[in-house]
């Protein structure tokens, strides 16, 4: 009777929950099929490796120790749960079935670990309350924790009654009774209470069975409607992650438009992303726009899109032209334009959700409708007309070179070893021009054979693309590529990480491939080759990783090794390397209105450096950073505590250039020439 009853209930549960689960899955699959194509099933080996790294080893998860640990307990519990399900369903369907004495106790060990995980999760959510959970569906989180708790309780209950049910009702032996040590311990209680007879044990067993298996299947049916769908989608989503260069926003040339207005405009990975989000808020916690009090949270972008998709699926309005546009309707223009495209969100996301391409695509739709900050619009027009963001005549691009008495080679006319792609800010911003001249002096002093493209260089287009202006990006890229192809050089270097990113990662789709270096890499190479002799500049300094250098291009070691060669004592800020915090300038933000910002990211970053205590130098390696952080230091009135210096300043001092900053020169002159 008991067996038959449980079998019937189990079969019913399997059928109903599988139907619900599959129904939902197919509905989502149908949306994915109408989405834009994308190749994410190549490079199998690499994909498997990344799944091992991020699922089995929880690489990103462990960046927050407590959350990583508690998640590991619960996550591994799900794997062990499979043993329990097989065992429990097996012993009912096929009397005498057992998983053996080795696997059985694993279940009990993990019951304890999962219980610890649940307690830690509750501690995290109730006592610590990290801000990153703001906006997440907390009720869902508690419900799921409750369900998981119920499952482990159920496991212990049915295991504790099975030693009595097995011989008396199922008429089989229970060889693993003691191996389920938790269940066995509890069974002693039933012995004491005298609940060991066939009826009492059957009731107890059935209860435990239903709590365990019943909740498991209820869970299965509920999952695809909750954030815990990530239990199923996290692994595939990590598998289909982007393995191309991270800095490449658009993998292939675009014929039509990159604008995203409805769900068919997303690619299929974007749709998978929406359902994989765990609402953990790690992206929100690292977002500079969110930290600055802007209306943007990368987590909420994903959740709002997911909710809108769910609603449209339920109401069958996916193709209804009357639904609000995703760009400007579901996600507001203010949210979209607040993004600096720093990529911190993507770097933090444990399930490899890609926020930036979505934001850029949504921006493209706003742009097509003419919704853009007026200043940014001016810059777009300047890029189109003059090829630079300063609205200056193209002919004046190399004007800075006239301020110095170095004859800079014209790479369009004569072959050079290194082609220097100067970039807009380095060419025109008065604060940065000084550094550009310094670099020219350094190159000449070191006998580097270099040249520039003069007025044939135009803005690299990195920001145009990130503002959603693909056509303009392409036009700029084609102009540069034409000039670069006509020039003769061996390698390219640039001081500007944004140009570096475009040249290195975005021009490939137009068939342009060249070796592109950041100046920190190039100078390190020249020093190590003995072409540049440097004195030590013995200062204590911290180093700010520019987003487009450190995070998007993984260039974090070269600048640090360079600092080492210069004898700088590096003190790291808490957020550094790929986890660096954006200055707030990227993605076109530098030209946009800052009203509504409560705390500028650059100011927050300077405070982070000040909190290190007694670190008087803030080293940067990006022209935009020079502008952003110098402005912050002045605005905050902390000039006497910290000074923003560019790597070029340090190099000039270390080499002993006459034009170098006097203070740095003085420091360097006290030191000896390093070997």
């Amino acid at each position, binding site marked *: 009777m008991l067996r038959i009853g449980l079998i019937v209930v189990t079969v019913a549960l399997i059928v109903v929950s599988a139907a619900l689960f599959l129904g939902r899955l197919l509905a989502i699959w149908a949306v994915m099929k109408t989405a834009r194509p994308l190749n994410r099933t190549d490079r199998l080996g690499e994909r498997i490796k990344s799944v091992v790294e991020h699922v089995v080893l929880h690489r990103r998860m462990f960046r927050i120790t407590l959350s990583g640990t508690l998640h590991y307990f619960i996550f591994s519990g799900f794997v062990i749960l499979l043993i329990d399900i097989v065992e429990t369903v097996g012993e009912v369907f096929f009397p005498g079935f057992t998983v053996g004495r080795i696997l059985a106790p694993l279940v009990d060990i993990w019951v304890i670990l999962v219980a610890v995980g649940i307690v830690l999760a509750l501690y995290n959510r109730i006592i610590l309350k990290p801000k990153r959970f703001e906006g997440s569906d907390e009720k869902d989180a508690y419900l799921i924790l409750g369900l998981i708790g119920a499952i482990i309780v159920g496991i212990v209950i049915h295991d504790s009654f099975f030693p009595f049910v097995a011989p008396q009702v199922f008429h089989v032996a229970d060889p693993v009774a003691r191996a389920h040590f938790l269940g066995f311990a509890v069974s002693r209680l039933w012995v004491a209470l005298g609940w060991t007879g066939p009826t009492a044990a059957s009731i107890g067993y059935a209860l435990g069975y239903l709590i365990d298996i019943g909740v498991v299947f209820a869970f299965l049916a509920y999952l695809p409607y909750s954030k815990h769908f990530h239990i199923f989608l996290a692994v595939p989503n990590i598998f289909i992650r982007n393995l191309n260069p991270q800095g490449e926003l658009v993998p292939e040339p675009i014929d039509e*438009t990159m604008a995203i207005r409805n769900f068919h405009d997303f690619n299929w990975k974007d749709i998978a992303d929406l359902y994989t989000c765990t609402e953990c808020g790690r992206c929100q916690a690292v977002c500079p726009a969110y930290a600055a009090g802007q209306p943007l949270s990368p987590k909420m972008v994903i959740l709002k899109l997911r909710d809108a998709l769910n609603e449209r699926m339920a109401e069958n309005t996916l193709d209804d032209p009357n639904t609000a546009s995703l760009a400007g309707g579901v996600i507001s223009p203010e949210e979209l334009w607040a993004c600096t495209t720093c990529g911190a969100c993507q770097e933090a996301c444990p399930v490899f959700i890609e926020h930036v391409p979505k934001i850029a695509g949504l921006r*493209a739709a706003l*742009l*097509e409708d*003419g919704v*853009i900050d*007026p200043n940014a*619009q001016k810059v*777009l*027009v300047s890029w*189109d*007309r*003059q090829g630079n963001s300063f*609205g*200056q*005549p*193209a*002919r004046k691009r190399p004007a800075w070179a006239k301020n110095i008495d170095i004859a800079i080679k014209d790479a369009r006319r004569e072959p050079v070893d290194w082609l220097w792609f100067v970039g807009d800010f380095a060419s025109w911003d008065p604060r940065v021009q000084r550094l550009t001249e310094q670099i020219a002096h350094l190159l000449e002093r070191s006998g580097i054979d270099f040249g520039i493209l003069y007025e044939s260089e135009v803005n690299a287009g990195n920001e145009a693309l990130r503002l959603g*202006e*693909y*056509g*303009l990006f*392409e*036009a700029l890229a084609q102009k540069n590529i034409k000039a670069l192809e006509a020039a003769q050089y061996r390698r390219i270097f640039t001081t500007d990480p944004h140009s570096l990113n475009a040249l290195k990662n975005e021009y490939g789709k137009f068939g342009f491939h060249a070796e592109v270096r950041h100046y920190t890499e190039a100078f390190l190479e020249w020093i190590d080759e003995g072409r540049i002799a440097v004195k030590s500049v013995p200062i204590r300094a911290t180093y700010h990783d520019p987003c487009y250098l450190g995070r998007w291009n993984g260039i974090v070691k070269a600048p640090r090794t360079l600092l080492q060669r210069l004898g700088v004592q590096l003190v790291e800020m808490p957020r550094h390397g790929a986890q660096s915090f954006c200055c707030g300038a990227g993605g076109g933000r530098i030209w946009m209105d800052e009203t509504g910002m409560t705390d500028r990211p650059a100011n927050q970053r300077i405070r982070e450096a000040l909190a290190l205590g007694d670190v008087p130098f803030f080293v940067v390696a990006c022209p935009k950073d020079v502008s952003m952080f110098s402005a912050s230091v002045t605005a905050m009135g902390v000039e006497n505590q910290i000074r923003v210096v560019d790597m070029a300043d340090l190099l000039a001092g270390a080499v002993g250039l006459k034009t170098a900053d006097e203070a740095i020169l003085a420091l360097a002159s006290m030191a000896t020439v390093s070997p």
Partner: protein
Amino acid sequence: MKITVLMKDVPDLVEDLELEAGQLLVDDISFVVSEWDDQALEEALLIKDEAGADVTIVAVDTGDVDTMLYTALAKGADRAVKIVGDFTRRLTNRTRAAILAEYCKSESPDLILTGVQAIDDIDGQIAGLLAGYLDIPHASVVREVHTMDAQLHFIQEYSGGRMAEFTAASPVLLGIQAARKPPRYVTVAKVRQLQKSATLDEVQVVLPSTPGLTVRRLYKPEAAGHAEMWGDDADTVAEHIVRVLGEKKLLRS
């Protein structure tokens, strides 16, 4: 409502203009849409968005006006007309107005909009000249154009911040000072797409003979008086300001 917007391109003053032997090197100049014409286009598109209208953009082909016309189409204009004939970049406004009059007579639009002025208006503004040729009502330095019950409502600005509200029956020709909103952005891709898919209507007009002016000399204004330098001491500067305001009787005691 049939709206015609007259547009022209003018030298881009971001770039330095170059002279050779007292002559402007026209071939080296890059041209951009005249900013007031761009405002006129935006106002026309806003009227279209608000009340519906058929917007035609017209430009005299004095060189490469195609991009300007395609851009206007990309922004939402319905039709673009290029008036072709034996025209050069040195076309005077008087001639230009005569050419445009030829076209407008055949089309009889309800409303003609154009920029109130352009940086190369040497012999008067297009709006007034053309209205004369067409013999229709005209107002310049206009903004806030709305259509209501087949009538046009608009505001004309006068010096000293005065304004007047007008109502007029079509046809009317208005010289636009500024659109209600800054001219909209149009993406490069959209312009390129229209360059592929749209066609410009070409209308042949014979170069009319009009009386014209000859520029004898261009020179900088001669200084009549000199600026008074007040230094950078805040108190002194403040005193000077108060004194000057007092002298001009702009202060109430």
